[in-house]
């Protein structure tokens, strides 16, 4: 994901609280631009961007903790939970990509793997999802996995795919819960209080 956008309309001599609200609201808008991917379970890039954007809102609220209403604290907690849930999904995506590369597996054909094959790179500046230095280690022809090791890696991949499904479900349920509570409006109301 691109670097955080500079916020326009700030005045450095104005009160911190006033500027903090403007920044937090912009970061919230940025986050909601990525929420269109919430229902796309295999859009690795979209979900990753949503995680980064949620993290930016959270950090903004934390940086300006003393200048924003105390009611922002539960918002920070919700964002931290979202970030953890999406972080777990992302960790699984990286591990799955890594295992697939180790196994050079082409036999699954699941929707997830089809999607993943198109997302070898991290969003943003095209940083590889699995670092090239790590790939070089794993794909070293001198240390290819034995048949026994391949079996273990295959099992690991299957387990991780299942785990990823569960992690996505947890995130999605939490998100729906936030939607039911009109989270966005509540954040804006809190910031404007």
């Amino acid at each position: 994901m691109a670097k955080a956008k500079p916020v326009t309309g700030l005045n450095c001599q104005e009160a911190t609280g006033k500027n903090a609200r403007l920044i937090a609201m912009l970061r919230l808008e940025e986050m909601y631009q990525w929420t269109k991917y919430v229902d796309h379970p295999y859009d690795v890039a979209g979900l990753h961007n949503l995680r980064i954007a949620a993290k930016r809102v959270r950090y903004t609220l934390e940086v300006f903790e003393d200048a924003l209403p105390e009611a922002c604290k539960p918002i920070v907690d919700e964002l931290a939970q979202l970030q953890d849930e999406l972080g777990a999904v992302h960790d699984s995506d990286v591990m799955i990509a890594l295992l697939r590369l180790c196994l050079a597996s082409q036999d699954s054909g699941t929707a997830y793997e089809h999607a993943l094959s198109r997302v070898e790179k991290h969003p943003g500046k095209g940083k590889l999802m699995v670092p090239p230095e790590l790939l070089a280690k794993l794909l070293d022809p001198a240390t290819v996995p034995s048949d026994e090791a391949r079996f273990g890696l295959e099992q690991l991949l299957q387990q991780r795919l299942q785990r990823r499904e569960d992690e996505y479900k947890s995130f999605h349920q939490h998100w729906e819960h936030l939607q039911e509570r009109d989270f966005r409006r509540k954040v804006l109301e809190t910031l404007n209080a």
Partner: protein
Amino acid sequence: MKEQTAPVWAAIDIGSNTVHIVVAHSMPDKLDILADEVDMTRIGESVNATGEISQQKQNETIKVLCKYKKLAEEHHAGQILVVGTEAIRKASNKDDFLAAVERETGLHVQLINGDIEAVLTFYGATYELYQEQNPPSRVGVMDLGGGSTELIIARSKRITWRTSFSIGSGWLHDRYLSANPPSHDELSVAQQFLRTYLKKSNVKRLPRVLVATGGTANSLLYLAQQAFQLPEQEHQLTYDGVMRAEGLMSALSAESIARRYHQPVGRARILLAGTLIIAAVMSKFHLQTIRVSPHGIREGVLLARARFGEGWLKQVQQISQQTDVDTSSHGKELEGTPEEPFAQSGRHELKDRAEKFVQECDKVLHNETEDIEPVHKLRVASRRLRAALDAYQSCCDPKLFKQVYKQVKDAADSAGAVRDTDVMLQGLQKQLEQVPTAEVAGVQWLVDHLMLYREERQQVLDDFLNALDGGTLKHQAEASIKKGAASNGKS
């Protein structure tokens, strides 16, 4: 320094109402208290009535000091440090009083001003808080006295602002709560006065962690512990608890409070007034809880002596002069509040976060163990610094901003490569303990490769951190927002 080998010193403070001694093994950030005693001498009463310390009060004070000197010697205290505050400062015969004390006891009393008193009180009231694992960055201290209430705000253990309100528990009691117990009308008027007084003040917000110190706060905690069966080790008062205590006391005479809750009658008489002040402050600043510290100026003296050596008083004086002291009657805008200018809060924020980041870099470099936490903490510190840089970018000098940002980002990337591998390894190693035998070889193969990769990444990180000039980075971060930064540079 171990507690047993730390030097034993004694500190005595002669205040308006009490003379108080603490004897302790003294370390820069910790005290192991061996003795702690207090006597009511009330020299302030005499000074307020006649402008001088009466012969009777002088004799009583000297008698107490002799007793304390003996107590300090029994504990083999290497030094006895004595400070005098407001009441002695105000006394017209202070020179005679100090000479008499020195002649009769051999103790030299350092007469300290309000600025030094605030620094020492802050040190004493907060040292236990700062022992905790993740102490808050911003802390407030409320020293609730009989005639005034001092508010101190600190950031990263440095006092950044303080002010004094001319309302204290004794003052409020004398002015508004003369009946025993006070009438409903008296209570209403006192509460209304406090609301109006605090409303008029420009202090809009206090840090979320407020430490209350002084006799009233501690007596209130003691009463709450007894009345509401709070555990003895509980050092927090909730707003609900304060309100309950207020309700309880408002129906009782001072004598009943003293008898039921084991308080001296003199203290019980003014305790309700002090409770009203605490309740009003909590209500005004939306504080659900406050912490109560039994420590104050005396402990601060011992900590300062351990931190700064023989020249402790001079050092504390210099520190006190760096503090932004508000002398106006209603306070002024506070740092870290919505009213603080954005550029100013940015300078503080970038300085603090850059310091923390550099500290974590050092910890990674000096980590000789297998502990993976230092890298994790470095990554978190880098994220927080970047978040602060993003937030304040519009006030920053673009060139300096870019320089700082790039270094922090590069450090974060290097630390991230190590940390991400640690997380994968942790999961896989846990899995190794659970997987069926047939799957072990696969997991182990991956673990072995990841460990090799991790080793390489750690080396890359170490090389980067060794080349990083932490001092320059801190300076650049702080300087990236120029004083008097103009409005939005990025609109």
